[in-house]
């Protein structure tokens, strides 16, 4: 008995001895992002290894604001991500409800098209999207361009469809017998029941929009309509630029998502695992 438990102890020690250094390596870049955001450029490029915070965060923020107007860019990002999330959740849960609840002409075609094109690389659509939005309709550098084209994302449709399909249909049939209209059944019976799925989906969509880089880079290149990642990216590679400022921007982009992740970890993980199982 004691032999077995000591073997188990050894295994436990081994487990932590393997994971702890790896975890430190993984945390290192995030920690340094934070440290660099508090250092001036002399500190960042000094010959000494410094792993503790300094006092230049506000200075760095001012440099960043002077370089790119980061407050405006961040405001644009917040508004775009919020609008995108609300619209996408609304559109995809309605579509998911239709696919889960009714038989209708063309259902097979709709489902097959969504599933069949799900894993196509985004690059296949980005060129025509750009030509259409920027060249044909001259809608580049608008809110429309930032918010509407990315709404094509069909992951939410499948996610919501699955959630609605798993609900007992007697629930809805009982309401139908009472003569309740379909849109009321959807809004007042089905949607409240789907709250956990809606939460997971909203978080993933918000994160997706908040971090989106390529499309906003292509379509909104004027400084006045840049999102925060595009504004920050425009500084990377410039020769006369404050690295402390860039790291401050990186922290501002990252920290809120980390806080969300820690507080809503369950929903994040549900969303990511579902996103993969799409």
């Amino acid at each position: 008995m004691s032999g077995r438990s000591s073997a188990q102890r050894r295994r436990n020690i081994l487990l932590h001895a393997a994971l702890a250094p790896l975890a430190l390596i993984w945390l290192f870049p995030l920690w340094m992002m934070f440290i660099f955001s508090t250092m001036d450029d002399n500190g960042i490029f000094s010959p000494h290894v410094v792993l503790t915070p300094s006092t230049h965060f506000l200075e760095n923020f001012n440099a960043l604001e002077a370089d790119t107007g980061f407050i405006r860019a961040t405001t644009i990002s917040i508004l775009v991500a919020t609008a995108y999330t609300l619209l996408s959740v609304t559109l995809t849960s309605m579509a998911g409800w239709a696919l889960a609840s009714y038989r209708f002409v063309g259902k097979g075609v709709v489902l097959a098209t969504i599933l069949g094109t799900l894993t196509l690389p985004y690059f296949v659509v980005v060129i025509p999207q750009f030509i259409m939005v920027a060249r044909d309709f001259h809608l580049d550098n608008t809110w429309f361009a930032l918010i509407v084209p990315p709404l094509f994302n069909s992951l939410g449709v499948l996610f919501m469809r699955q959630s609605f399909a798993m609900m007992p249909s007697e629930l809805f049939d009982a309401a139908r017998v009472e003569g309740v209209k379909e849109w009321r059944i959807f809004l007042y019976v089905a949607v409240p029941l789907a709250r956990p799925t809606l939460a997971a989906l909203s978080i993933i969509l918000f994160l997706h929009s908040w971090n989106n880089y390529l499309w906003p880079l292509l379509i909104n290149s004027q400084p006045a309509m840049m999102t925060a990642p595009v504004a920050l990216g425009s500084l990377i590679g410039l020769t006369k630029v404050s690295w402390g400022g860039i790291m401050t921007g990186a922290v501002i982009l990252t920290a809120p998502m980390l806080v969300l992740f820690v507080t809503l970890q369950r929903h994040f993980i549900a969303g990511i695992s579902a996103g993969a199982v799409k």
Partner: protein
Amino acid sequence: MRQRTQTAYAFLTPYLLIFLAFWIWPIINSFWLSFLNTRSANWTFNPRMTWGRLLVDPAFANALQNTLVILVIQVPIMIALATVLATLLNSPALKVRGLFRFAFFAPVVVGEVAYAAMFRLLFNEFGIINKMLAGIGLTTIPWLSDPNAAMAVIIIALTWRWAGYNAIIILAGLQSIPEDVYEAATLDGVSKVRQFFFMTLPLLKPVILLCVVLSVIGTMQLFSEPFLITNRGGPGQATETLGLFLYRQGFNAFNFGYASAVAYTIAALAIAISLLNLWLGRERE
């Protein structure tokens, strides 16, 4: 379930309009564009300027080769690491589980630009990685100006960013394996290591294959990392990927036809490599 075509389309139409306008139509349009010479004022049918050019363009060959090198090295390392991580994180004996999960899963929420900026600074010639190498008496490495080292930085950055993401998916797979499978094996005296190789891995195969396929599709479209970390695919064109090549052709040169041909090549390769993986990993009875 009742036949209610009208009701169904009332719910579906708003999404379908967006889906058709910004997904289905571009897929078709881009295929058509890939046969057009878009460098003249009037776009004319001339596949020799697009598909024909792909075959002889050394810059495309270089981008293709770089992408495949990253794919072949990075994806296996990351998937193996993610599998090990998921297994260790799933261990009931693990203490401070929350902290470990945070360490490995946090990169999932970090945006491309923020993490690219950070890795560019970490691996700067005068950056902290070189300072630490020098500190322990090793020679410093010109990370971003040496072609091979720059590739290594891209691979390291990608692994940092995506290992946790894959571990989350594999962990979900692990947690769906019923406990009693292991209890029986433990009673029969099968060691934990043998249990991992002969029970866990085979049961996880579908999930791991899924991770491989997702990673292949992602790697084929690699753009932000070489764009931002190695400064537009540098040094020279040493880290130029297919995604970056497409960006240059489409949005610097505005050669939409050629860029569309590249886009469809990326799609075809992603599908082909994914199918190859699924075929290699199929059940053999």
